[in-house]
């Protein structure tokens, strides 16, 4: 069990991604790293930023960043803590959450729109991490 968001959680997430054959297939052509930014709200008092490097169906590296400027990434996926909690705990559709502006995405939208299934598999993977929310 790991607390979300934390270094321990993102490490467990990496392990889960790398042992998920459905994600491996859905994302076999994917190249691009992310900043997953958890912005503060009533339940979280500070911003937390995960670095996640996804490459051809595998997760090559994860890290907790100190600031958004620490690493430049191809994509940024940003949302309030409560929305992250619902996304992961309720296995919500990430694309629908983007469309309804629960999350903001920056990066090459054409590539994202061709990787919807990979994004869904990523959420399912996150949901499989034994998680304790703050």
């Amino acid at each position, binding site marked *: 069990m790991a607390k979300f968001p934390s270094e321990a959680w993102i490490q467990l997430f990496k392990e889960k991604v790398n042992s998920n054959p459905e994600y491996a297939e859905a994302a076999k052509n994917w190249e691009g790293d992310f900043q997953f930014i958890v912005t503060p709200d009533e339940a979280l008092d500070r911003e937390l930023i995960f670095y996640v490097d996804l490459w051809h169906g595998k997760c090559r590296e994860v890290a907790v960043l100190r600031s958004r400027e620490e690493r430049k990434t191809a994509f940024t996926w940003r949302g309030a803590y409560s929305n992250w909690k619902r996304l992961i705990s309720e296995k919500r559709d990430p694309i*629908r959450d983007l469309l309804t502006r629960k999350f903001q995405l920056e990066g090459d*939208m054409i590539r*994202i729109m061709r990787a919807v299934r990979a994004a*869904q598999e990523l959420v399912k993977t996150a949901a499989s991490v034994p998680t304790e929310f703050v």
Partner: protein
Amino acid sequence: MVFSLWWFLSPEIVFGEDALDYLEQIKGRRAFIVTDKTICGLGFVDIVVAKLRKAGMEVQVFDGVEREPSVENVSKGAETLTQFAPDWIIGLGGGSCIDAAKAMWVLYENPNLRVEEINPMTELTLRQKAKLVAIPTTSGTGSEATWAAVITEPKERRKMELPSKQLIADIAILDPALPTLMPPELTADTGMDALAHAVEAFASTWSTDFTDALALKAIKLVFENLAKACSNRKDRQVRERMHNAATLAGMAFSNSQLGVAHAMAHSLGGVLKLPHGKTVGMMLPYVIRFSRKEAAERYADILQNLGVSTGPGEDSADVLASTVERLMRQIGETLSLEEWGIGREIFTNALDLLVERACESTLPALSPRVPSEAEVRKLFEYAYEGRRVDF
């Protein structure tokens, strides 16, 4: 189940006999008609031009829309449109013309944007220069009611699905006189497109109470009227019902999205240049059977809506797929790629790209059963041979 935040979008819908007269009430200075040469030849453009002139507008016509319009085609049209600087854009024709009008509208108002950059996450600037009227002349595309356009990239052999909440017509005009000139084959193809829209919208994981009501009504209208429309093109009432069914289905799928049949049909269209209505209709029974377990209740609801009962030991997917196949036979549609006359070698050579393009689509991910790449390949192979899906 409680729905998460979502919305329902629709244009103002003007319908019924003489619906085109509504154009005379539109206020503006300049109208730009986006259409093709066939529609011009049928005399529809002259009628629309006359009504717009009666409204006091200066009118220019672009009749160069290609079947399954390409990025280049719409870019060329957008240049002419920009020079004319209209405050109304009129998409007149089948899905190709309306989709082309939408794409040209985007380029007119967002000159620095590329067509392929249209996506649902980035807000488009529209309605600063012009508004859009969509007038379908076929009964199937639904584009008059949707917030998306389908544009092809011929070099990549790809049909791009380009959705954006802003990309919806302000007014859709459904005049039942327009589809009466459709020949039986086009009536059948476009009618199957409408049916596939409605079935996939109803089975979609994004369906809602609002889209369900529209989809079920559309399905019922198609089953009651499509065969009649194919056999008697002059029956205005039947034509009107099919025209309405297509728009209802468009409203449904635009707000709940589509599924695997459309992803595969778009792939067949992009890679092998096969017409959309025929391919999507053909794929529908395969995809219904593929989702037999996950969508069993949804398919049972459709059958109940149609008054079709399932016998002992029958499952709803099989009964629905067979019901669709019977309709297809009745209206002269083919049930497999092989029956259609697509050569085995052509199919085999194209198969890898067909699978790749279908898997790139956003649509399979919203289906009741999300297929793996291997399952998409198998679905194509079954659809080629006409085999009943058993996996």
